[in-house]
């Protein structure tokens, strides 16, 4: 008699254990509380398990609204130190019948975020083995952000190029206009100066490159060239009053020797005649 009573009392829990440990319709749960929370980690105890079971019952209720799931319907077994265990869900109407795996899975997936938040954990630290989490939707942009930055940069560069080209064209146009006025005067001034020595000293630093310095062995030429360069610069700058009329009558060599001796050492510091100075055909 007593044994029968005892059997009756312990039967449900034995059956419950069997149902859970069968493992067919159950899922293994693993929590990594210390990894997720570090110092703020809480201890896993009976109350936390109670919370888990009630959250799961809540999820099942929402998923299958017709059936009223209770905490007693959530059976737990195989608890370990890791904090992992297996759970199964029994039907509220029939405590020996288990809810199928896929229904449990979809219930958990739908409410994953609520379950995670209840425990201050995430998809990685509250793992349901076998239930993959739904990953967050990737953010889609109307216009890709990189295209916006690209557009800004290429716009700025295009503006830069256009302004550079415009300034070059206006400079050329202005020079062409000035050239028409001055060319007559300059031409005859300079023709007189180079008449003496013909072609040897022409095209010193122009791109025509007619003077091939490589084959010159004459050292004096180099110094003479330097002085001529200085002389030309001074001519362009119009500093030396002697340049134009007075020197026209002298031969080229003596004209060059008229250059101030101190300017011999000045050769490298002198600025080259600037690009926009018209020097006529010969130089």
């Amino acid at each position, binding site marked *: 008699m007593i044994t029968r009573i005892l059997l009756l009392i312990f039967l449900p829990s034995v059956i419950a254990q069997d149902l859970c440990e069968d493992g067919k319709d159950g899922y293994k749960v693993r929590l*990594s*509380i*210390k*990894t997720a929370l570090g110092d703020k980690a809480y201890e896993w105890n009976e109350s936390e398990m109670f919370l888990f079971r009630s959250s799961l019952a809540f999820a099942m209720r929402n998923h299958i609204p017709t059936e009223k799931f209770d905490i007693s319907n959530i059976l737990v077994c195989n608890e*370990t*130190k*890791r*904090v*992992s265990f297996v759970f199964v869900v029994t039907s509220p109407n029939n405590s020996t019948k288990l809810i199928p795996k896929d229904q449990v899975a979809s219930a958990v997936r739908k409410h994953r975020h609520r379950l995670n938040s209840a425990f201050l954990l995430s998809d990685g630290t509250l793992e349901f083995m076998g239930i*993959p989490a*739904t*990953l*967050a*939707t*990737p953010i889609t942009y109307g216009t890709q*952000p*990189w*295209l916006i*930055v*690209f557009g800004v*940069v*290429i716009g700025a*560069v*295009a503006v*830069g*190029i256009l302004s*550079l*080209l415009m300034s*070059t064209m206006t400079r050329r146009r202005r020079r062409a206009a000035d050239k028409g006025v001055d060319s007559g005067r300059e031409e005859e001034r300079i023709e007189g100066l180079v008449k003496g020595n013909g*072609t*040897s000293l022409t095209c010193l*630093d*122009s*791109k*025509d*490159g*007619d*003077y*091939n*310095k*490589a*084959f*010159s*062995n*004459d*050292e004096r030429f*180099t110094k003479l060239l*330097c002085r001529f360069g200085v002389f030309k610069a001074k001519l362009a700058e119009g500093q030396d009053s002697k340049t134009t009329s007075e020197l026209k009558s002298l031969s080229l060599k003596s004209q060059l020797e008229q250059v101030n001796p101190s300017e011999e050492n000045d*050769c*490298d510091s002198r600025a*080259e*005649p*600037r*690009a*926009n*100075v*018209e*020097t*006529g*055909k010969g130089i």
Partner: protein
Amino acid sequence: MSKEARPSWDSPTQFVLACVSYAVGLGNVWRFPYLCQMHGGGGFLIPYLLMLVLEGIPLFCMELAIGQRMRLGCVGAWSAISPYLGGLGIASVVTSVYLSLYYNIINAWSFWYLFHSFQPVLPWSECPVNSNRSGYVEECEVASPTQYFFYRETLNISSSIDENGGVHMGVALCLLLAWVIVFLFVVRGIKSTGKVVYFTATFPYLVLIIYLIRGFTLHGAWNGVKYMFTPKLDQLANPQTWINAATQIFFSLGLGFGSLIAFASYNHQNNDFEKQAVAVSLINSGTSVFACMVTFAIYGFKATLNYESCLERMKLLLINTFDLSESDISIDNVTIWISDLNHTNPEMFSSIASKIEDCSLEAELDTAVEGTGLAFIVYSEAIKNMPVSQLWSVLYFIMLLLLGMGSMLGNITAIITPLGDLKILSRTFSNETINGLVCLVCLLLGLGFTTRSGSYWFTMFNDYGATLSLLFIVLFEVVSVCYIYGLKRFEKDIEDMLGHRPNWYWRVMWAVVSPVLLITLFIFYIISYIQGGTPTYQAWDKDLGRSVVKEYPPYGQAFIALLLVSSLSCIPLVALYELCKRKHRGQPIRQRQTVSTVSSGL
């Protein structure tokens, strides 16, 4: 029609900064740290500095001297030295064209990464989600997010050089932007280039200093720096170390492209190029060492991160398998636990034995990467783990861009200077038009590198387009100057320019040491080409998530041969042409002129 005087730099500082900007390029950042790592860390500095003194500085000075003396681009300068040597200049221009074609792709990639840094989450920090949102894209799972972003989203790489595909529109747009910016910088010749180099030469140093400070304060950076500075002097016995040091100095200074001649041709006659040559070479090497320190700090950070996450993974594996509590194992005693559990529970342990990894900090530090892999994968991975990663990403890619753009300026100047010297062209077109046309042609040809197999062609150009030909060109240059033009005449020219003769160091280096070194390097390269068998390349396998080695197909090998032959053959071809021309005209073949000679102005 009147001719304008040759433009010149506004000040010697502009010239020096232009040379620095040209010489200090991507190679300093991504090749030198690799070599340092491969050849014994701090010990590599010994052969490197020795080669700098024996080979780098003398050759650099020689090219500047030629440019400043002749005041013409490389084609005109060499024709002026001897009409038979015009081919040397043309070979330099051809090599510069090849380099310009493929180098700007790197700038395009840097732009692509730079523009993608302006997002709340860096796109290479996490894998994209697959179509049904159940997991990540498979290729990204097998590889890593940074590799996936580089190989799939940036390059959309195919699995071999045979498989072509369409042009990647995004990268093509970035390439267009890169060329437009290059055009903006060179449109007025050195007048515009001279202003730009103030920025491109100095800003990268600012970023490097910021990165040095940031790098040294990262967790685990000290491991990397310690690794770099502990010299492994046994590597000095390996001849490969010395060969690599010589090659690195040579290519890092950018000799043989004609850029230095072009830059120097805009100098005043009395500019002191000797001191400037020494200064620029030292700055270049100093930057390499500096960038090496930054790179190793970043390596150390990344290696420590990988090592610690490896330990974390092992810990997780153990506590999940053996159901231990989380606080039982800490990162420090993971290895002890592994061996314990192996003894106590061998059957359960064997089930996870395949997943057990050997976590080693040394192994992580030993993985040496160079080239685009270092710049775009390793660095991006390190950056994504830093706090405020968008800022560091933007800074880093701007630095890469400036380094790349600075070198591009030199290469484009090497092409447009001889073209501008050509009377035929400069009479019909203005300088701006010539420069624009050069940029346009290079852009159109460069679009080929943005196709799906474009990265493999890029590697081919990188490995073969400018390596052997440059060695030959510079060897020819130094031999021509010393023995054809004559060392005595060259010394006198320098005396005319500087006011004093070059001292014994320069004479010995030019006449003896550098040619011998170059011949050795040249022979070594030929031998390694012959011994290496069929040339191979690294192809990305998307199923394995890593690169595999593949051989070039026959047409690929033919193209490599074409690349090498097309630049080298200019030298003998032009010499032959000149010979035939003179014979045909009945002129004496050798002419010793004492006064000016009218040359063709080429």
